[in-house]
């Protein structure tokens, strides 16, 4: 029961972060939304594992998500810096 409520809340959080990522408007908003989305997805997987009854198999995936989400976010930020993806089109001259 409680697991169901928590899973639902996380799913709603995923949805809200996704909507923010879709709307943008700028690159930074999308990056922030994606990072938040990753964390909520990871938690959602863990909770789903408990609901499914064999959480041990699912927890490894969650560790993986945490690691990969960190690495891809560092890569995204490096890319913003290195590639100069700082402005947005409407603000460019």
């Amino acid at each position, binding site marked *: 029961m*409680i*697991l169901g409520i928590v899973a639902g809340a996380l799913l709603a959080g995923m949805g809200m972060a996704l909507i*923010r990522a879709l709307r943008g408007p700028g690159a930074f908003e999308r990056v922030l939304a994606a990072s*938040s989305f990753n*964390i*909520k997805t990871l*938690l959602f997987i863990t909770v789903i594992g408990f609901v499914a009854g064999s959480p041990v198999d699912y927890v490894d995936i969650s560790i993986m998500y*945490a690691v990969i*989400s*960190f690495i891809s976010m560092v890569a995204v930020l490096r890319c913003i810096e290195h590639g100069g993806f700082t402005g947005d089109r409407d603000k460019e001259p």
Partner: protein
Amino acid sequence: MSILEVVSGVLMLAGALFVLTGSVGLLRLPDALTQVHAVGITDTLGVGLIILGLAIRAGPTLLALKLLLILAILVLTTPTTSHAIARAVSRYRSRPWKDGQGRAP
């Protein structure tokens, strides 16, 4: 219902509430710098509470240890990401949002 179950349930529900609050903030606040305020803090706290709740539910097993490992990784990485994003915004975006500029699209 044992005391541990109640504690784990309360922790998880509180965590879910924090995550929801942060998500609403992410959705409603106008720009990345303000959204970091909502998401950076509540995500770490909500994640911590939910994982603690799950770990109590799992009992003293290897599973609880793995959950605490996830918690340790997230406590290290989530604030780092938020900080790096906020720093990048403050460095590269010349005009932060000011009061009265209207709401998020």
